[in-house]
C-alpha cells in the first residue's frame, strides 16, 4: 500500500495538483501503513485461535479474487457478474489435480492460473461485442450455468457430480510442521501468494498495459485513435482478471478442503461484486477491505438477529454505500484530502 495514491484511479476525488503535492508525504505515510500491516499479518497467526486464522485466510482468498475483478471492472471498465465461474474453475482444477492425479497442491496454483487465463481470454473475445449491462448479463449467464455444468453426468467422472471432491489438508513442508500447524501454514502460504499477486497487479496497472486499459475505460474511441488495440487489451484484461480469480479459487479449495457445485452458485459472484464496490472500484488495496466485509459482516448481521440477518446485512450494505459512495477507497481518499487541507 506504499504508493496507494498512484492507484486511486476510481474517480475525480482530488484535484491533480493537490494529489501531486501530497504524493511525497503520502508515500512515506503509505510505507508506514504497509509495514505495520505486514508485521501485523505475520504476528497474527501466533496470537490467535486456529478458527480466526482460518477466517483471515479466507479473507485473503476473497481479497485475491476481488483484486482480479477490480482489474477488470475498476481498471478496464468491463462488468462481470460471472467471476464465481472462474473461481469454480480454479477450485476444481486444484481438487481434480490433487485428488485424482496426485499433483502436489503447490503446482495446482500456476496450472489453475494458466487455465483460467485461457478461459477468461476466450470468454473475453465474444464479450467484446457487448457493453455495460449487456456484458453483465452475459457473465451472469456464465455464473448461473456453472453449478449445473459441474453436475452434468458426462463430467461426473472428474467433478464427482453433486457429491463434489474432498481434499486432504496439506501439512507445512520442509520440517516447518514442527513450528506451524496446517492452518498457520496455509495462512502464510496464502499471504505470500496474495502479496505476490498484489505486487503483480500494481505493476500491471503502472505499466504501459495498465495505461492502455485505463484509456479504454475512460474513452474507448480516443484510445483506439491513439493506436491501442482495444480488442486484444480487453480480452487480455478478461484473461488476467480470470487468472487472479482462478488462483483465489484454487487457494479457496485447498483451505476449505472440499469443492461441490453448491459452493459456486450465483451468490458467490454477487459476493465478489459486493466486495469490489465496498472496497472501492479501481483502488487495489480496497480488495482487502471488501473481503473483510463479505467474510465478517454476514456473521455480525446474524449475531444481531437470526431472523433478520439478511435485512441487517442489507442495512449495512446501504449504510456503507451511503456513507462512502466510492467505497472504502473513496472514504480514505477524502479523509486524507481533508487532513491535508487542515495541515
Amino acid at each position, binding site marked *: 500500500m506504499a504508493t496507494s495514491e498512484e492507484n486511486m484511479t476510481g474517480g475525480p476525488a482530488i484535484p491533480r495538483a493537490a494529489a501531486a503535492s501530497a504524493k511525497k508525504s503520502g508515500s512515506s505515510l503509505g510505507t508506514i501503513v504497509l509495514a505495520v500491516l505486514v508485521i*501485523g499479518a505475520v504476528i*497474527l497467526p501466533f*496470537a*490467535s*485461535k*486456529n*478458527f*480466526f486464522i*482460518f*477466517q483471515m485466510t*479466507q479473507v485473503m482468498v476473497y481479497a485475491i479474487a476481488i483484486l482480479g475483478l477490480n482489474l477488470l471492472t475498476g481498471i478496464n471498465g468491463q462488468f462481470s457478474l460471472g467471476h464465481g465461474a472462474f473461481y469454480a474453475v480454479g477450485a476444481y482444477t486444484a481438487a481434480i489435480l490433487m485428488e485424482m492425479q496426485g499433483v502436489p497442491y503447490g503446482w495446482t496454483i500456476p496450472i489453475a492460473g494458466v487455465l483460467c487465463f485461457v478461459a477468461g481470454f476466450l470468454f473475453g473475445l465474444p464479450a467484446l461485442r457487448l457493453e455495460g449491462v449487456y456484458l453483465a448479463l452475459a457473465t451472469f449467464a456464465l455464473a448461473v450455468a456453472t453449478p*449445473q455444468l459441474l*453436475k452434468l*453426468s458426462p463430467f461426473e467422472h472428474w467433478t464427482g*457430480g*453433486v*457429491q*463434489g471432491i*474432498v481434499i486432504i489438508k496439506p501439512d507445512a513442508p520442509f520440517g516447518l510442521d514442527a513450528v506451524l500447524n496446517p492452518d498457520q501454514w496455509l495462512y502464510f502460504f496464502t499471504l505470500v501468494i496474495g502479496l505476490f499477486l498484489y505486487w503483480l497487479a500494481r505493476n500491471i496497472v503502472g505499466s504501459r498495459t495498465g495505461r492502455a486499459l485505463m484509456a479504454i475505460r475512460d474513452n474507448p474511441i480516443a484510445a483506439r485513435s491513439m493506436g491501442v488495440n482495444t480488442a486484444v487489451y480487453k480480452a487480455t484484461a478478461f484473461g488476467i482478471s480470470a487468472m487472479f480469480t482462478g488462483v483465489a479459487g484454487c487457494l*479457496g479449495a485447498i483451505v*476449505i*478442503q*472440499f469443492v*461441490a*457445485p*453448491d*459452493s459456486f*452458485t450465483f*451468490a458467490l459472484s454477487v459476493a465478489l461484486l459486493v466486495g469490489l464496490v465496498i472496497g472501492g472500484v479501481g483502488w487495489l488495496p480496497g480488495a482487502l477491505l471488501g473481503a*473483510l466485509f463479505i467474510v*465478517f459482516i454476514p*456473521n455480525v448481521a*446474524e449475531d444481531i438477529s*437470526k*431472523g433478520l*440477518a*439478511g435485512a441487517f446485512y442489507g442495512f449495512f450494505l446501504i449504510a456503507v454505500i451511503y456513507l462512502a459512495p466510492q467505497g472504502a477507497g473513496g472514504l480514505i481518499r477524502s479523509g486524507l484530502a481533508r487532513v491535508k487541507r487542515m495541515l
Partner: protein
Amino acid sequence: MINRRTLMAAAAAGAATLTAMPAMAADAIKIGNTNPYSGPASAYGQIGRTVEAYFEMINAEGGVNGRQIEFISYDDAYSPPKTVEQVRRLVEQDEVDVLFGTLGTPTNTAIHKYVNAKKVPHLFVATGASKWNDPENFPWTSGWQPNYPTEGAIYAQWILANVENPKIAVLYQNDDYGKDYLHGLKSGLGGRVDEVLIAEAPYEVAQPTVDSEVLNLQASGANVFFIVATPKFAAQAIKKSAEIGWEAERFLNNVSISVGSVLQPAGLEASKGLISAGYLMEADDPQWKDDPALLAWREFMNKWYPDGDQTSSFTVFGYSSAWTMVETLKRAGDDLSRENIMKAASSLEDVAAPLLLPGITLNTSPTDSAPIEAMQLMRFNGESWERFGEVVHAESS
C-alpha cells in the same frame, strides 16, 4: 476492524490456553447446528427453528438431568464453504459439546472429515444419503432418517414378492438423491435386475415437465412404475400416468408423499392406488388426529412455535429428531464427555421416538449408526395413506 478483531483474538488466545479442554464442567450443554436459514434451500430452515423451539421447551421444563441446553444454530445458506466456516466456529470458538442435525448432503460432506478428526459427535444429521452410516471410517457421525437406498430396497422386496411377472420402469431425478434410490432398488432386486428392470428415464431439475419421460416409460410395456421425484415433478408424473390410463402398479418415493403439496395438485382421484413407504406420521392425515404423540406435537407447535407450518413434514421431522437428541443426552447421564455422548448415541435399542409410525423404533450399535432402518408400506385410498402389511426392516447398508 482488523485491529479490534486482532485484539479480541489475542485475548481469546490467552483465554484459550486456560480452557484448552472443552468446557464439560460448565452448567449448560452446548449443542451446535447449521441450517439454511437463507438462500435457495431456506425452506429447510423450519427444521432448525423447530429444534430450537423444542430445546426452549425442554429448558423451560427444567432441562436435561438438571442442565440447560444452549442451542447455537448458524446459517450456512446451504453453501459448503460457509458450513465449514460455521462448524469450525462452533467447534473452535463456541466449543460446543456436540453437533446435532446439521442439514444437507453437500454441506455435511464438507465437514465429515473435519469433525471426525476433531472427535466431535456429529449426531443425527438431517440428510438421507447412505454415507453417514460408516462407523468404521467415521465413528463420530450418525444419520437419523432411513436412507434412500434402504427405501428403494424395500420396494424391490415387495415387488418381487407380490407382482406377477414384474417389469419395472423408473423415473428418477438425475442427481445423488435419484441415483441413491435407483441403486437401492437394484440391490434389492439382486440377481433379477436385468430381467425385471426394463426402463430407466432420468430427468433434470431444470426441465419444465416430465410428461415425455412418462410416455416413453409407458411405451416400454412395464407393469410397475417407480417415481423417484421431488414434489413438483412427482405431481406431474402421477397426473400424466393417470391421464394416459397406464395400468401399472405405481410407487412414489417418500420424499413426495405430502397430501397437500403433491397429491392434491396431481388430483386425488389420479393419485388413488399409489404405494409408498413412510416412517413419520403425516400431520394432516386424519388417522392420527387423536394420537397422543401428535396431540403433544400440536400443543408444542401452538405454544412454542406458533409461526411454524403445521402441515409441513419439516416440523414433524424437527420435533422427532430433537426428541432423539434429548433422549441421548438423558441416557448419557451426568458424564457429558464427548465419548460418553457418542456411546449413548450408538447404543439406542428399540427406542420409540414420538411421531414415528407404530412399530418403528430407533436402533443403533457401535457398528450401525443408522437409527431408523424400517418403514411401512402404505397405499393412498383417495383421502389418506392406508398402511398395510408389516413394518419392513431393511438393514441393507
